[in-house]
């Protein structure tokens, strides 16, 4: 796998308008993004759609890339959003019953019990870390994950983004103090 420093460099070069960095950047991101989407959605074909859409969006917004941020994290954030959107679309079309059912239906056979237990533990830890944050941070994080338009409408986009950044920073610090760095 390409190291993260190289990935950051390609992303920064592409953001600076260097077209030669696009192909290596894409080839470095594609397997990671596809793997994430596959794990998230549990369906390879759906994950390919999702990874493609996520990278198309990402490449369309490359000139907004903030060099202070980690390129891989930014790419995975895009992928996560795209996966959520895709899942919601399928839910709306009635292709799945409830949130998470896509994954449960297709992935149940392939995921063993140990992985499920680990994942449940991870979710529990994440929720506990989230609960330790101030209520305003929880509100902003929840709004960003659930597309809560009410809070977004009540704030200017820049204010919302800054609050979200601060909340994510505190969440990261809280997680690191409990579980160390990833």
């Amino acid at each position, binding site marked *: 796998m390409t190291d993260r420093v190289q990935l950051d460099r390609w992303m920064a070069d*592409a*953001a*600076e*308008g*260097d077209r030669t960095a*696009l*192909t290596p950047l*894409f*080839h470095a991101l*594609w397997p990671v993004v596809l793997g994430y989407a596959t794990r998230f959605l549990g369906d390879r074909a759906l994950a*390919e759609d999702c*990874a*493609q859409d996520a*990278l*198309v*969006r*990402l*490449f*369309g*917004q*490359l*000139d907004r890339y903030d*060099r202070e941020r980690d390129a891989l994290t930014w790419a995975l954030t895009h992928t996560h959003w795209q996966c959520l959107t895709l899942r919601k679309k399928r839910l709306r079309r009635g292709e799945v019953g409830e949130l998470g059912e896509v994954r449960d239906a297709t992935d149940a056979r392939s995921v063993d019990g140990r992985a499920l237990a680990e994942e449940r533990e991870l979710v529990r830890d994440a929720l506990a870390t989230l609960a330790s944050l101030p209520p305003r941070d929880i509100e902003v994080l929840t709004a960003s994950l659930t597309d809560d338009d009410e809070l977004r409408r009540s704030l200017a986009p820049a204010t919302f983004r800054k609050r979200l950044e601060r909340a994510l920073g505190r969440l990261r610090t809280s997680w690191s103090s409990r579980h160390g760095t990833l």
Partner: protein
Amino acid sequence: MERSDLALRRARRAYETTHVAAGVRALGLAAGLCVLAIGLHRITSMSWLVAALLAATLATLAWRGGAYRRGALAGVLAGLPPLVVPSIVFAMSHPGHCTGCATGASWPCMLACLGTSALVGVVVGHRASADRMPRAFGLSAIATAALTGLLGCGTVGLGGALGVVAGLVAGGVAGWVVAGRTARA
């Protein structure tokens, strides 16, 4: 065709679409500057040539992206004072447009071109030295600032045109040097 190849093609297209849109916006900006220049100055065939050059340069640099785009936009801002100030100076000393500029530019106009260009040149040079890609930023900024300034000062005659270019280059170099020394100190 593999799925990843298709995705790469779509991603590239999205990237280029964003850059082409930036180029088109830059053309709009160039059109706005031309309207401003027409309102403020007497327009000659040289002005139209400068306007076409400015539009092409702005669109190309905005399409290229990164430091070139940042520099181009900073250059337009830097070029506004040389575009506006000579007409203000002339209006303060004579009523109406710079009507006599075709035969010979007035000294106040030429000095205004040189002075404002030198001042904004210092700012551009200083700002360029702080950019991640100072050379690209500086060159783009000087190019678009000179063309924007020429839309105004070009109508003052050769003296005004030389004033804006010399002022920007001298100011830009001075600003760069000062910023470099400050950073080292």
